[in-house]
């Protein structure tokens, strides 16, 4: 696993824990001041956890590009049919 993926996934886990902590705080009886945390919970979860996990896994798992493997360095229209079939 590449180092950048490890950074993405570890920080995503931190955001997940933070989001769930905020979720617990919102679930408990609370005053109106704490209602402002609702968008914080959404963003910790959707951006910090979901999006960051996607970035990390995509960086790790998606096909790699190089000049030796041109499909990534050319537009889809310019690829030959044989290259597409191989994918």
């Amino acid at each position, binding site marked *: 696993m590449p180092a950048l993926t490890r950074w993405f996934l570890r920080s995503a886990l931190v955001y997940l824990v933070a989001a769930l902590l905020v979720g617990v705080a919102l679930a408990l009886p609370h005053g109106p001041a704490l209602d402002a945390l609702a968008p914080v919970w959404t963003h910790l979860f*959707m951006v910090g956890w*979901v*999006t960051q996990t*996607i970035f990390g896994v995509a960086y790790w798992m*998606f*096909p790699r590009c190089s000049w030796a493997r041109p499909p990534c360095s050319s537009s*889809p229209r310019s690829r030959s049919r044989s290259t*597409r079939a191989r*994918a």
Partner: protein
Amino acid sequence: MPALSVWFIRASLAYLVAGFALGAAMLALKASARYGAMARALVPHVELVLVGWTMQLTMGVAFWILPRFEGGASRGAVGYAWGAFVLLNAGVLLVAASSVGAGSDVARAAGRLAELLAAAAFGLHAWGRIKGASAAP
């Protein structure tokens, strides 16, 4: 990676940028008097990020990764998956446009219906490909 996955994933990245840009604009204008008009962007912001980005990326990767039929040669009923791509994008754009512009409830409902049909179409496509370890890879 198959062509449909490329379309799904590139479209999802476009929605990610658009959704985040909309959210950033909302935050930037929150302190100004113009925020009243910008508050209407909340529905499109959620729609772009939740359906346009995460749901579409999931479909694109699933179409690519799920087990194939006939020893890996076929992805089955591909037409349903293409239909899901068209319906999902039409739905997201319809909901977003109807929420920001002269929003008509009928257009928004039609957009949501298109998203529902997209999910159903993708489900029909993917159902047979979700198999255990004994199935063909």
